[in-house]
């Protein structure tokens, strides 16, 4: 349980650090408003030309957009800052500071940074999700809600694994700063149900880059389209990916030679 305690402590320190910069809250709020506004404009533009996109009505796609923004907020708060720091550390050789600590290194590099104010995105995503859901005709049951929370948690795990796998690449290819653009670009595909994409792209978005599992599956849960089998599959996939990420992390570490070597 020491692992959890260390993680919790890091989180607290990170939040306290961020709380010093209160104006950032308003900047973030403004940016979230722009983001949500743009999303709404795009949706209304699309639905001014059609009634249904691949079987999804406007209110349902609004929920999907909410899920995408919500999960994006989680990524920007907890996952992305840590991955950026890891990349920088590998580039500059300062990863030594994390490696020489007695706690597990993968844990440490995953919890060092928190961008607390980005949680505003999580809230704006939630608001969109709720507004979208009130527009759909079917009501959301308790089971749907539970499936949604589970699917969202699995989505976060999958995205964490994918980000870490890509970041581990820094041990081989040192200059990785553009990987951020790559990820942001790919993550935008989650704004639309994965079924819209042609077959080859759909499979790569599901298994290669797990955006579909991360965004579409939770959105399917709240719009009562989810099969239990898909959820089970997501569980299995997350477990496999976690083990694979752990293995790759060990391999990558062997390539690391440090600042003083």
């Amino acid at each position, binding site marked *: 349980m020491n692992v959890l305690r260390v993680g919790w402590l890091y989180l607290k320190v990170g939040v306290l650090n961020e709380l010093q910069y209160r104006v950032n809250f308003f900047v973030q709020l403004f940016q979230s408003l*722009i983001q949500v506004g*743009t999303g709404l404009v795009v949706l209304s533009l699309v639905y001014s030309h059609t009634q249904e996109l691949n079987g999804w009505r406007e209110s349902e796609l609004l929920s999907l957009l909410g899920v995408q923004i919500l999960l994006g907020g989680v990524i920007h708060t907890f996952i992305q800052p840590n991955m950026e720091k890891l990349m920088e550390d590998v580039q500059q050789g300062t990863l030594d500071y994390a490696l020489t600590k007695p706690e597990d290194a993968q844990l440490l590099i995953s919890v060092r940074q928190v961008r607390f104010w980005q949680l505003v995105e999580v809230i704006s995503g939630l608001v969109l999700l709720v507004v979208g859901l009130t527009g759909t005709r079917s009501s959301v049951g308790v089971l749907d809600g539970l499936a949604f929370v589970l699917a969202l948690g699995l989505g976060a795990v999958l995205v964490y694994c994918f980000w870490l796998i890509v970041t581990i690449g820094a041990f081989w290819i040192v*200059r990785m700063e553009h990987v*951020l653009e790559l990820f942001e670009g790919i993550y935008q595909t989650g704004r639309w149900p994965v079924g819209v994409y042609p077959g080859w792209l759909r499979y790569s978005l599901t298994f290669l880059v797990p955006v579909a599992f991360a965004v579409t599956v939770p959105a399917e849960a709240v719009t009562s389209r989810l099969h239990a089998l898909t959820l089970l599959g997501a569980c299995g996939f997350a477990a496999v990916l976690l083990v694979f990420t752990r293995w790759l992390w060990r391999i990558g570490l062997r390539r690391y030679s440090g600042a003083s070597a």
Partner: protein
Amino acid sequence: MQTQPLLREGRARSLAAFYLATMRTAIATQLQYRVANYFYMLGMVAEPVIYLVVWSAIARSNGGSVDGITPGQFAAYYIVWTLVRNMNIVFGAPFWEWRIRQGELSGQLLRPLHPLHYDLAYFAGWKVVVVGLWVPIALALSAIFHPDLHPSGLQIGVFVVAIWGAYLIRSMFQSTIGMLNFWTTRGAAVFDLYMTAELLLSGRLVPLRLMPGWVQTLATYTPFKWTFSFPIEALAGAPSTRTLLLGLAQQLLWAVIGLGLFSVAWRSAIRRFSAVGG
């Protein structure tokens, strides 16, 4: 009386030499970072592919077209989009923040040439590498999405000029917005607003024809349209010769306006600058 024109000629020649040398440096540097450049490009390509897939799906469900635009025409629009977007990437407003905060600007101010010359030249050189790396992506996208693209010789000629026009206009306006960084360290919110305006009014999101009428009217009075919609439509659409040539003139006009705005902003901004590091 004799020395004056000679001096001016010398200045033009040394400026040209400076541009060439900087471009060569940029090409040599960026060629080393092919993987990094590809990461950036693949992330960038995701954006138009999403638009393309969504609008093609709508076109198919509407019985073959949206407002007369077929999936093949959408494919042509968004594949040309990828080249225009690559040409459009400039030393943007957020980079000005980095340049000021890191103290890079101090050193650059000591040089005899304005930093804008350096940005323009460096990014122009980078374009050579970028376009080279773009070709395989364009071929792959064309094989997948079957674009309906049949430009005339004139269209190709105008397009080649127009992408550089777009580059200049975007450089000027992005640098002007970048001047905000001399006053505030939280320019990010303003940049977001600016980029959103560009997204909606430039034809970056959808061909402007699909926008409501008032948006199209509004777009003609902004510089954005000339950095995306015009070059794309010049190659992928069916514009008249008159539209093409008038468009180039409009681009020139916006580049000059941008340069004017930048000079004014720069003059009052640089007075606010106090050096950091170096």
